[in-house]
């Protein structure tokens, strides 16, 4: 019987909820594992889960410097989508979408995946052409997309001003109906529990302080809880990639770390039942199940490892919010936070073998890491287990920049702050 079920809820309710088991164990580190995954965020935990479930590699440890969910997996705006245009991207993110659609069932853990749709607003005819082209590319690669007229948008999102008098008139919008949101903490906890039940050791408060080496080869990690040897070491540390890879002697990578702020308003009655993005600036907003509006905009735009941002971006995001939904201008902000993004040089991720023997690298998520969590873990686990990429992540190599094979969705060139 599944551990979490209506029957289990009832039984535990009648016995005072005394018999629930912890979602994951707190084991002591073993001296050696087949695979050590550095980083206990969504991607690291998903990697460990799929290593155990898909490839039968259960002698695995996930080492996390803080507690589970303390990094970017708890600092995003929870949006899940696969509305990309370049084939490598749309196929990868569509694989992620399919994993999301079955995730609560597979993990027996409610990740509250809600396919409320994402609507990208277009404000000029050329932007409309561009979005329709993207929609066609998505349909071509197996994702879903629908073009909406202003009248249809007005019906779907009643708070929007779709009149021609608006400061940024809306000429249409690209809707991906299967996109949506998920409860980000639950994704971390669900994967952690799933991996733990398959035998993975999750080691919290276990910061990596160095790498064990035999010549060029990486043979383990030195941590705050002692040395741990491993046949394979996999790195999935999001915005800390630069810092962790320096410990391995790799001092230059095609990555810059930047801060992205996000915001939550006070709770409101339901006003937006989809995800809306503002095409004239950069804003994305949805309403959480608790009622708060969850929204964000651009990164601050300069290198940062501080998990907090500065005021100009706050002002910019608030003004865009008020421009798009004038009726929501009096709503008060409840809290804001910053997460550190490893912005890659072409805006696309890196899931690869290397760069050193015995090492595997998962990074460069820019600010799109959350929606990729399942496919990132799935592809990274495949890459680690087979010492070679799956066709879905074969394009996401580290050397693509030097081979001239960049995957530049936005066409911004090697300027990470613009991706």
């Amino acid at each position, binding site marked *: 019987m599944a551990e979490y079920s209506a029957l289990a809820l009832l039984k535990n309710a009648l016995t005072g909820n005394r018999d629930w088991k912890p979602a994951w164990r707190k084991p002591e580190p073993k001296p050696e594992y087949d695979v050590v995954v550095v980083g206990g965020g969504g991607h690291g935990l998903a990697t460990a889960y799929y290593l155990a479930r898909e490839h039968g590699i259960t002698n695995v440890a996930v080492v996390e410097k803080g507690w589970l969910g303390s990094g970017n997996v708890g600092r995003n705006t929870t949006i899940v989508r696969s509305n990309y245009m370049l084939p490598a991207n749309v196929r990868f993110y569509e694989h992620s979408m399919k994993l999301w659609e079955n995730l609560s069932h597979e993990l027996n853990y409610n990740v509250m995946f809600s396919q409320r749709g994402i609507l990208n607003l277009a404000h000029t005819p050329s932007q409309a052409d561009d979005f329709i082209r993207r929609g066609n590319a998505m349909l071509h690669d197996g994702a879903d997309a629908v073009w909406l007229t202003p009248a249809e948008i007005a019906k779907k999102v009643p708070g929007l001003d779709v009149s021609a008098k608006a400061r940024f008139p809306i000429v249409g919008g690209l809707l991906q109906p299967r996109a949506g949101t998920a409860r980000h903490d639950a994704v971390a906890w669900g994967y952690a529990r799933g991996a733990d039940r398959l035998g993975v050791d999750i080691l919290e408060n276990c910061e990596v302080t160095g790498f064990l080496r035999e010549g060029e080869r990486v043979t383990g990690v030195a941590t705050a809880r002692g040395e741990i040897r491993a046949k394979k070491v996999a790195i999935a540390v999001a915005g800390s990639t630069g*810092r962790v890879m320096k410990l391995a002697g790799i001092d230059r*990578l095609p*990555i810059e770390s930047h801060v992205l702020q996000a915001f939550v308003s006070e709770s409101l009655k339901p006003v937006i039942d989809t995800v809306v993005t503002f095409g004239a600036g950069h804003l994305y907003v949805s309403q959480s199940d608790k009622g708060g509006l969850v929204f964000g905009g651009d990164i601050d735009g300069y290198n940062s490892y501080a998990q907090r941002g500065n005021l100009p971006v706050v002002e910019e995001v608030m003004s865009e919010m008020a421009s798009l939904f004038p009726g929501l201008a009096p709503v008060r902000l409840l809290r804001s936070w910053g997460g550190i993004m490893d912005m890659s040089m072409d805006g696309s991720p890196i899931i690869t073998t290397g760069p050193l023997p015995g090492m595997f690298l998962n990074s460069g998520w820019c600010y799109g890491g959350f929606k990729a969590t399942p496919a990132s873990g799935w592809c990274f686990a495949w890459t680690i287990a087979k010492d070679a990429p799956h066709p879905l992540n074969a394009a996401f190599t580290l050397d693509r920049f030097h081979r001239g094979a960049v995957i530049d969705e936005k066409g911004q060139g090697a300027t*990470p702050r613009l991706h």
Partner: protein
Amino acid sequence: MLIPCPYCGPRDVSEFTYQGDANRPRPDPLSTDRQAWDGYVYDRLNTAGDHREYWQHSGGCRAHLVVVRSTLTHAIVSAGFARDEAAAKPKKTRRKAGAKP
């Protein structure tokens, strides 16, 4: 965040435009060393700590600056004119137009 522009004094960060990492020496324009150009375009030190970077005071005197700023705390360590640094560098020998390589 206030940036102390050496010409205008301390001004809000919103007056400035970030122009990126100043730790990357640009290869000689005539160089055909592919590795050097690859490194210049794509690879970054991504420093956690004091970081040398270019900013332009685009909403003020328009001067290009070299700013040293902590990426851990946002504290500004120093700010100077980029032109002063460029002038201090040893001059590269330049080939004359039309000269054979």
